[in-house]
């Protein structure tokens, strides 16, 4: 039996396709301590944490957490409520449109807390993290540090025994970082038994941990206290100790980065910002920022996330047009339309923005081509860069399979490819490990000192900032101070740059004070019971709030069907009018003219200029000028009167068969009534043209108008297409954005998650149903002739099945594009063609009919026409309701099977 609160891993291996992420890791970690995982990117830290948290599926080996095997679903179910997991990335598991309070509230609901318990806990948590004053602000508008604090609140709401933090402070400014760790320390004094496992890229943070695990290339290099690791390697700092622990070949070439002094003879101004201001609505992102950067200078930009660094850089590159102020590059005003200046600037955005579907070499070549390098120069330059940035080994690999550090190197290679005179780099080293960062800086320094390239760079690392010629501190859209690192330290009398920065930030007063963390309370219930309405409600409520905040989506979802009801309901019509025709009257008798008059006076036909000869028939039909050509041969009048039964020829344009069939029916009918007229004129009595009559009686639509028959079908179409599209993106979007982790890490059943996600959309679809119903009654003049209950009940089942189908698509596909494609094409074609809306199901051939029967629209079409046209009661329609209910169940089962509760 493993230690109840401790952790044990035995021979754990994990691979993603060809990449070995973890290799034979065995590890025992003590309970109740601060444990740190340190190591470069892509060495398997996140994978290891994911396995411990139970959000990743264990491939090989044994993982024991909280006294049980994490491969055992039963143990996981009891363990989830005791574990809290904060994934990598700023606020990745948060919901950006929800407010701070709503985010925490959602997690409380997930863990089944009652309203009073939740309210108390939220108040305490927000108070203790200093988020109280921002409780109503949407999470997406918080700074990086605040997002991480909010994530922590969400993690702590259920009093976990094991807190797992994956690089919680990457990309967070120094002050927020310091406050974050102080917060964790205070929480630990309140809950001494809690184990905290953290992966971090900051060695200075790792110094404060109780126990460290150093990792490289999927293996554990060493474990021990920070002191032990340092004494073992004989190094003064942990950063040096880690480098010393690395295998020899990785250490090779690593040396301390030094910044040679700059040749200051050239003092030309490369970048000048003058009162730059950017407003988004009533929010001022950048507030009158001014600075000047000299040619060849390395200028650092420091500040928290969301303080306006990125916005400032975008204004300099011309990506954004400033609301106020001016930016000059090389003395020229930045002009978005001027392409020549772009050739002199290299830009690297914060997130990876190259094509993941092209190989490393293809990405470089594409950019070389786009920058108009000559073909020979392209080849030379690409080869040179592959060499210089050490990318030759991975030249044919695709970026998505590379570790972050390598991807950043590729981005930098692309940025310098055209040998620009200036580089604008937005957090180029965020998430890159120390060794790779140093290599990166050596490149930058060489560019600056040897080639005289001006470098404007933003960073969160203080040791990087210290290497800049000058730096500026930025906060809340304003520049607090500019100067050399030494000047800034001196000005505040601070020993380190970090202290100086924090002093400036504290003066600016933007950072919130922290309070006292909450004491532990009560015991948290586990994932007991079969289906918890509370947890379903938690998901449904969150989804509904998000939907209500997205006004555009809501409007599209409700207005789209109404517009389509009008267009398709009136537009799809088989009541053909104005059929174009031309005549060739070779007889020119009174009889022939009488027949042609019959045609031209009918509203079904529209006359075109007559044809002059037989050759014209084909020509006019081919040109699409006419649908029908009527030819009356010489002698028609004579033969008619002499009882020789002459023939009239009608030529139809068969390219549109629907129209041709209709035209044939109409022209034959017109001819018959002409004959009747004729003989009445002669004899004065209605003639006997046939021996008996077949009298049609059009049932369910007496006037035989498309405007009655088609709209019930449009209702059927709209209630499947829109709801499917609504839910089809739901899950796959969470996969792309990262919040799907909450499903993986929480004590939730898949069906609870699915039902919760589905419920708001069922409701929205029913609102749409009511609106469409009102249109059918008011605009199209339809009446509910059958059972209203059957219609409403059918609609509920039908939209449930439709949203369920969307969930199936969403669980299955991996990208949003694929989801859009699947939900439009797979749904549209059978819905329009095989449901009985346009063509009766009884005439479909057998295979096609089976396709139609395997999909819900056919059944709702029967209900819809049954109620609107046929006046049927529920007793005559219920088999369709049963079928729809069957689809609901089928789609739930499929979605549950396809949805993964753990990552691979």
């Amino acid at each position, binding site marked *: 039996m493993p230690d109840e609160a401790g952790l044990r891993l035995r021979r754990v291996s994990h691979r993603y396709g060809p990449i070995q992420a973890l290799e034979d890791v065995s590890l025992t970690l003590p309970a109740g301590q601060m444990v740190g995982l340190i190591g470069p990117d892509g060495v398997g830290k996140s994978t290891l944490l994911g396995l411990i948290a139970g959000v990743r599926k264990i491939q090989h080996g044994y993982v024991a957490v909280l006294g049980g095997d994490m491969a055992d679903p039963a143990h996981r179910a009891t363990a989830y409520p005791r574990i809290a997991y904060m994934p990598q990335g700023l606020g990745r598991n948060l919901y950006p449109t929800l407010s701070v309070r709503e985010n925490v509230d959602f997690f409380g609901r997930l863990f089944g807390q009652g309203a009073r318990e939740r309210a108390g806990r939220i108040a305490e948590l927000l108070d203790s993290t200093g988020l109280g004053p921002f409780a109503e602000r949407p999470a997406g508008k918080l700074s990086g540090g605040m997002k991480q604090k909010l994530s922590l609140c969400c993690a702590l709401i259920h009093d976990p025994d094991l807190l797992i933090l994956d690089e919680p402070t990457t990309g967070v400014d120094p002050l927020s970082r310091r406050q974050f760790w102080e917060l964790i320390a205070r929480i630990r004094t309140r809950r001494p038994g809690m184990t905290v496992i953290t992966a971090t890229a900051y060695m200075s943070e790792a110094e404060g941990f109780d126990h460290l695990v150093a990792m490289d290339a999927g293996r554990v290099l060493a474990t021990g206290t920070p002191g032990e690791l340092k004494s073992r390697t004989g190094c003064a700092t942990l950063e040096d100790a880690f480098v010393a622990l690395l295998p020899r070949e990785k250490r090779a070439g690593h040396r301390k980065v030094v910044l040679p002094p700059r040749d200051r003879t050239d003092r030309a101004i490369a970048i000048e910002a003058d009162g730059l201001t950017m407003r988004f609505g009533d929010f001022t992102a950048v507030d009158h920022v001014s600075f000047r950067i000299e040619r060849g200078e390395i200028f650092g930009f420091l500040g928290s996330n969301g303080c306006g660094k990125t916005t400032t850089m975008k204004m300099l*590159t011309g990506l*954004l*047009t400033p609301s106020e102020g001016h930016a000059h590059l090389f003395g020229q005003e930045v002009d*978005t339309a001027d392409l*020549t200046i772009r050739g002199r600037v290299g830009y690297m955005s914060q997130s990876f923005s190259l094509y993941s579907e092209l190989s490393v070499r293809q990405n470089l070549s594409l950019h070389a*081509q*786009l920058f*108009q390098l000559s073909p020979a120069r392209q080849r030379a330059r690409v080869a040179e860069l592959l060499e210089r940035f050490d990318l030759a080994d991975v030249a044919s690999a695709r970026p998505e399979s590379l570790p972050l550090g390598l991807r950043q190197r590729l981005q930098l290679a692309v940025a310098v490819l055209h040998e620009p005179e200036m580089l604008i780099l937005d957090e180029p080293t965020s998430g890159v490990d120390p060794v790779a960062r140093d290599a990166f800086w050596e490149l930058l320094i060489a560019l600056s000192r040897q080639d005289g390239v001006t470098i404007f760079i933003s960073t969160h690392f203080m040791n990087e900032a210290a290497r800049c010629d000058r730096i500026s501190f930025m906060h809340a859209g304003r520049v607090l101070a500019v100067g050399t690192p030494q000047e800034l330290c001196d000005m505040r009398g601070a020993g380190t740059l970090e202290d100086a920065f924090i002093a400036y930030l504290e003066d600016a007063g933007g950072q919130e004070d922290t309070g006292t963390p909450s004491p532990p309370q009560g015991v948290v219930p586990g994932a007991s019971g079969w289906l918890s309405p509370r947890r379903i409600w938690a998901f449904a409520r969150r989804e509904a709030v998000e939907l209500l905040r997205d006004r555009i989506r809501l409007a599209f979802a409700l207005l*789209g069907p109404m517009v389509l009801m009008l267009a*398709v309901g*009136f*537009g*799809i019509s088989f009541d053909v*009018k104005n*059929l*174009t025709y031309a005549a060739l009257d070779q007889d020119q008798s009174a009889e022939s003219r009488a027949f042609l008059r019959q045609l031209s006076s009918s509203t079904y036909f529209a006359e075109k200029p007559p044809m002059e000869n037989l050759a014209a028939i*084909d020509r006019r*039909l081919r040109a*699409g000028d006419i649908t029908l050509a009527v030819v009356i041969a010489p002698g028609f009048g004579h*033969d*008619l009167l002499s009882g020789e039964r002459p*023939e009239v020829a009608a030529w*139809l*344009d*068969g390219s549109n*068969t*629907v129209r041709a*069939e*209709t035209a*044939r*029916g109409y022209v034959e009918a017109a001819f018959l009534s002409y004959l009747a007229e004729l*003989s009445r004129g002669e004899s004065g009595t209605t003639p006997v043209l046939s*021996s008996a*009559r*077949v009298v*049609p009686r*059009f*049932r369910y639509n007496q006037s*035989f108008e*498309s405007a009655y028959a088609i709209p019930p079908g449009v209702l059927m179409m709209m209630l499947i*297409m829109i709801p499917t599209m*609504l839910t089809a993106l739901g899950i796959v979007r969470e996969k*792309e954005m990262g919040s799907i982790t909450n499903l993986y890490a929480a004590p939730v059943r898949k069906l609870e998650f699915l039902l919760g996600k589905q419920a708001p959309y069922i409701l929205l679809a029913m609102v749409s149903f009511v609106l469409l119903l009102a249109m059918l009654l008011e605009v199209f003049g339809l009446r509910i002739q059958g059972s209203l209950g059957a219609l409403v009940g059918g609609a509920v089942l039908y939209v449930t099945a439709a949203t369920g189908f969307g969930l199936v698509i969403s669980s299955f596909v*991996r990208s949003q*594009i694929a989801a*859009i*494609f699947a*939900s*439009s*094409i797979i749904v*549209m*074609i059978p819905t329009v063609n*095989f449901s009985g809306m346009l*063509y*009766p*199901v009884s*005439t479909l*051939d057998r295979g*096609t009919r089976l396709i139609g029967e395997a999909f819900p629209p056919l059944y709702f079409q*029967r209900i819809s026409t049954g109620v609107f046209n046929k006046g049927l009661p529920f007793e005559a329609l219920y088999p369709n309701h049963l079928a729809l209910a069957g689809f609901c169940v089928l789609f739930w089962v499929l979605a549950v099977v396809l949805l993964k509760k753990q990552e691979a």
Partner: protein
Amino acid sequence: MRALGNIFRLGVKELYSLARDPVLMGLILYTFTFAVFTVANGVRTEVRNAAVAIVDEDRSGISSRIIGALLPPYFKPPRVISSQEMNPAMDRGDYSFVLTIPSGFQRDLLAGKQPEIQLNVDATAMTLAGNGTRYIQRIVQTELERFVAEDGRQSVLPAEIVSRARFNPNLESKWFLAVMQVTGNITILSVILSGAAVIREREHGTIEHLLVMPLRPIEIMLAKIWANGLVIVSAAVLSLVLVVRGVLGIPVPGSVAVFAMGAGVYLFAVTSLGIMLATFARTMPQFGLLAIPVFVVLYMLSGGMTPLEAMPEPLHTGMQFSPATHFTSFAQAVLYRGAGLDLVWRDLLAVAAIGAVFCALALYRFRRTMSVG
């Protein structure tokens, strides 16, 4: 020249992206093969396999001859039912037509009393109801004429109208539907593919990267248009040759080359439309919802399903601004009627003009919306 080079290279990049997305390629393949085949082969707008029942209260020689005249493939073998069964059976949709032959029909017929046969039609299925009624009337009428003629009396019609169809002699709807499916699918695919490609570039941040390079927005857009257009036009032409002509065995008399050229012009218009829609949506879910009404209208109301002339006047006028309307008319003329460019240039010009407007609007919106955020 420089711009053309950029457009070409960016387009090649676009082709790589498509080739690396197996789900998308699979869906394109499905759309132009299986989807075309099932609709063309499975759906009939002409009378075929119609379900008929007869309430025979006469049980005479003529009534059994009428039953015997309703033949496959137009009709399923008719079922004889009682008059009580008729209503529930029609409510369930078991039969589209029920003929009621009253008792004493043969006697009255021969006595020249002009008796009536009642034909109950399920009018909820408009196409079948209209055409089927005329078919049944004609078949029954012919059968009666023969019966009466055998009895020694002359036919009473003094003249006849003989109708023949050009370009599709048997008016087989399969011919019509197959090609209309191809053109309809071109529409759906282009709108979604080009629009989603723009949203994806924005969501992945790659568009920002392009915008800081010496490239103009129009170059980025035109690259997307030609690359996506090329893929879809090729798929459509292959579908026409292999699936429509090959598997379905439909003789398409017109020139595939002229069609391909027209499809190219059309693609320019619809991909521009897709890009324009993408500039109105911030996220993929919004784009999905916005795209539905657009492609449904283009797919259903451009004359490929029901004739344009049948629409109410305002809608008819409105659809003149849809490129799909002109392209459908172009495709019908070229492919079925074998019309050459001399006959269809007006439609092509209209498509190109509408496309140019979409393209200009898309460019305007693209410039305004892409750089922010």
